[in-house]
């Protein structure tokens, strides 16, 4: 298993834990797939996206720039996972 896969699983697991504990009171009854849009599926709303951004910046010590605030980076488990890994690997701008 590559280092990237390990990190990917870590990001996804932590993210899903954050969503379930923070937005769903720990109840896993709302099922969602890794590719589901947070916003379109009503998993979290735009205020929740703000909280997600704070969570990602604090957890992974990254700066998320304004031009990175796009659904392709933040609107699903898969999108966030790929985005965080790119940031951690220095592939996006403003990586600390």
């Amino acid at each position, binding site marked *: 298993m590559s280092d990237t896969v390990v990190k990917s699983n870590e990001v996804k697991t932590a993210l899903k834990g954050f969503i379930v504990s923070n937005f769903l009171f720990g109840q896993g009854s709302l099922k969602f797939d890794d590719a589901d849009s947070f916003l379109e599926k009503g998993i979290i*709303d735009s*205020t929740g996206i*703000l909280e997600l951004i*704070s969570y990602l910046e604090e957890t992974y010590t990254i700066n998320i720039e304004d031009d990175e605030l796009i659904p392709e980076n*933040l609107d699903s488990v898969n999108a966030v996972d790929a985005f965080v890994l790119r940031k951690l690997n220095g592939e996006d701008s403003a990586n600390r």
Partner: protein
Amino acid sequence: MRTAETVFNRKSLKIDAASETERICRWIRETIAFKMKRQGAVVALSGGIDSSTVAALCVRALGPEKVLGLQMPEQHSSEDTLELSRGVAEHFGIEAVHQDITEVLKSLGCYSRQETAFRRLIPEYAAGWRAKIVLPGVLESGQLRLFSLVAVSPECREIKKRLDHKSYLEIVAATNFKQRVRKMFEYYHADRLNYAVTGTPNRLEYDQGFFVKLGDGAADIKPIAHLYKSQVYQLAEYLGVPEEIRSRPPTTDTYSLPQSQEEFYFSLSYEKMDLCLYGKNKGIPRDQVAFAAGINLEQLDRVYADIEQKRRTTAYLHMTPQLVENVL
């Protein structure tokens, strides 16, 4: 040959102002008298087109002696708010009570709580600075639409910072005191006179949740919530709302820096927003809506997605208190 321009355009939102006025006035009379057993209406006058039109409708429906206007400026209100709202009251011959809410807001910590949150983001923020929160435009990019704080120093130096979750919620919570204090005074006067309280949202505001729950969102009747903004202007003209009100750009009049409704919430001019929301609601072909609004199909898709997102995010604002089971 029929072109997109001839099929759907601004004229599609044209209403018969006379018959619509008659329909609304009949509804106001029946609702207030028969359903609510109240004897008049309280209208909070902001000097804007919506509250002025509602005041005019209530006067026509109930008579000027049965309508009370309230002017409730605070220290961040624009200078012409009071003069314009006084002019509306005089024009329609209604009594107007002036209640400055600045001291109440100070006691509640509205301004100090706002400033604490402002300073967390912009440490330089101090006395004499002014601020507002703004959203990025929906037409320019597909960026998630998250608020930024804009602050301007007394020397006109502008600083803009993206709002974090905590600061955003704190600023909105503190600012919402304004709408809730106003509503408290509206119900005070309604209670003492046995009147009903009017709400003044137009359709764009009601549909998109542009109101404060238990603030300006609270009311006994909302007579223009079914009308698109351009239809409110048509009604206002028919009802004789003064030209200076009808020609004034819509503002929020909520933060210390002037703030258009476009930059605060809709991200689109009301004319374009009217066409897009109407087109979406009526199932008008997308190419016709885009053509009428002067935008491309990609931009229209972003506008539609934003409309849906706002409906989802603000569904809570429309909810009445939820019960475990039906009681009455």
